[in-house]
């Protein structure tokens, strides 16, 4: 199903603008992630697509050419996985998964068959007649997904589906979820605040900030060509280099850094993996901490910029804490982005 959102916005009673007017188009079978910090409007946008919130006047939500803006949630034929899963404690696993099919008034035998099919797909065999309270967090998450998928929804909406799990389980289930969604071949929208989740699962990521979409694109495009400083910071943890720009030179507290070209009025950012320890480098800095992380060292550096810079250094040895080092950054690795854009 293709999903077209036009001019969709949300103002809460009291005047708080949770979402500024937004347009979004999602292709059939595409998995799109809404990524952003809490309060950026991503959940509100998802809930409006679901029909759980009403958008401001003038919005249009179209599923495959059908305008569903005025339809209530129960008639939209969406599937939703909630942050807390919202599994019904009064029903078994089977009862939960079959509930949407029961609402469609399908014959009992067909419900049975389709429930079994989804149970097998989500690897819940043997758990069908268990109580919800007897399941682990990961199993609950799969039941929630199975329940949302069983009625064959037009679009699957997932609201932070991994955030209720502990860290180790989260990264394991992340890959599992990505695989399952691809197997279902469904159009899906996935809300998260975790960039790794978004990048692992989504075909395209919409980075949101302060109630609007800052940039939308493939994970790679966002990483390589962030449109704003916010996107660069949020996707890939870019750090600002704060100094004075003169022509194609950036004057930092630790030295003068060549830029790829004149960059007046721009903001310059760099990623940790692009900062190199280089005895011939133009910048001096002081090593504050060194953390050994197995494949590389993580080095916190002061004096180069106004704030601490983090460098990732691979090699057999690292400088000592308190040592002064020289750094270089390749001009083409710098992110030169327009300054002063809020998002």
């Amino acid at each position, binding site marked *: 199903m293709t999903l077209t959102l036009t001019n969709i916005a949300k103002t809460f009673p009291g005047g708080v603008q949770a979402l500024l007017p937004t347009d979004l188009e999602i292709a059939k079978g595409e998995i799109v992630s809404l990524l952003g910090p809490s309060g950026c409007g991503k959940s509100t946008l998802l809930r409006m697509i*679901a*029909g*759980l919130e009403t958008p401001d006047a003038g919005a249009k939500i179209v599923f495959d050419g059908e305008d569903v803006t005025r339809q*209530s*949630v*129960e*008639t939209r*034929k*969406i*599937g*939703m996985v*909630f942050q*807390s*899963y*919202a*599994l*019904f*404690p*009064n*029903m078994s696993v089977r009862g939960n998964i079959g*509930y*949407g099919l029961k*609402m*469609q008034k399908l014959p009992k035998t067909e419900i049975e068959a389709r429930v079994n099919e989804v149970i097998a797909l989500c690897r819940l065999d043997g758990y069908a007649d268990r109580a919800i309270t007897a399941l682990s967090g990961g199993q609950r998450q799969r039941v929630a997904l199975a*329940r*949302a998928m069983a*009625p064959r929804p037009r679009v699957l*909406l997932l609201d932070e589906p991994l955030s209720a799990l502990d860290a180790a389980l989260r990264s394991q289930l992340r890959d599992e979820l990505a695989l399952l969604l691809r197997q279902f071949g469904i159009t899906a929208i996935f809300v998260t605040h975790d960039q790794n989740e978004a990048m692992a699962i989504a075909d395209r990521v919409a980075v949101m900030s302060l109630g609007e979409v800052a940039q939308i694109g493939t994970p790679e495009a966002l990483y390589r060509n962030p449109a704003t400083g916010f996107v660069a910071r949020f996707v890939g943890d870019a750090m600002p280099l704060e100094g004075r720009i003169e022509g194609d030179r950036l004057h930092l507290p630790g030295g003068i850094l060549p830029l790829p070209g004149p960059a007046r009025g721009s903001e310059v950012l760099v990623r940790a993996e692009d900062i190199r320890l280089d005895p011939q480098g133009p910048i001096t800095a002081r090593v504050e901490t060194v953390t050994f992380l197995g494949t590389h060292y993580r080095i916190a550096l002061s004096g180069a910029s106004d704030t601490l810079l983090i460098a990732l250094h691979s090699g057999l040895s690292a400088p000592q804490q308190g040592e002064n080092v020289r750094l270089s950054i390749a001009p083409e690795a710098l992110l030169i982005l327009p300054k002063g854009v809020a998002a």
Partner: protein
Amino acid sequence: MKSLSKAIPLIVTLLACAFLLIPIIQSVLAGLTVNYFRGLSSGLTLKWVARVLELYSGSILLSIWIALACLVVTLILGVPAAYALARNPGRASRVLEEFISLPLAIPGLALALALLQLYGTLQGFRTSWTFILVGHVLYTLPFMVRSVLSVLAAIDLKVLEEGAASLGAGPARRFFDIVVPNALPGILAGALTVVTLSIGEFNLTWMLHTPYLKTLPVGLADSYASMRLEVASAYTLVFFVMIVPLLMAMQWASARAQRIMQ
């Protein structure tokens, strides 16, 4: 000194138990002895209980009937209302909850006076058992609403309902599929409270009843005033036999509902 200060709480507890229990035992014994003034030596008998059943079975049955009717009405009025209050936890809901709880605070006598002045001249209603029923519903309804409300407040009702709605369930389906089953512990505790309180209700009923419609407690008051002590005791014994299991079931159900809420 130290052992004395340790013993005082125990003594107070035992004295309080004795104070509450001794008259209960007395009434049980009096209801079962041939002649209370001659004591147990006069022998045990069930004739007083039989006499009570002969004299007052109408009152007892009327009380059971009203208690069950009261349960049905409080379920119909109370459970959906508790749900609506749980879904709209605003100021207006608090005020409404406080208002329907007034019968807990205002003495039954005053409520009965209020009902009598408004509906006392409505003959068909005034002389029917439904008039007593109204009083009982008024008094027990807040217990049902609060019992259900506290359970509903403890579960994340809104998200569960959103889950059901996303699967295609409309408001009424959600109420019967999600709300009622998950509120069952509260409904059970509320139901037992309603029946227990209805069977024992006297203050309102005494004012609302007619000579042809006497409930169990009204009959009790009657027997205390006009019957010999053995009959009054036997009647009290019959009441205990009905109310004590109900009270215990009610306490068990309330404790269970509270456990589930945690």
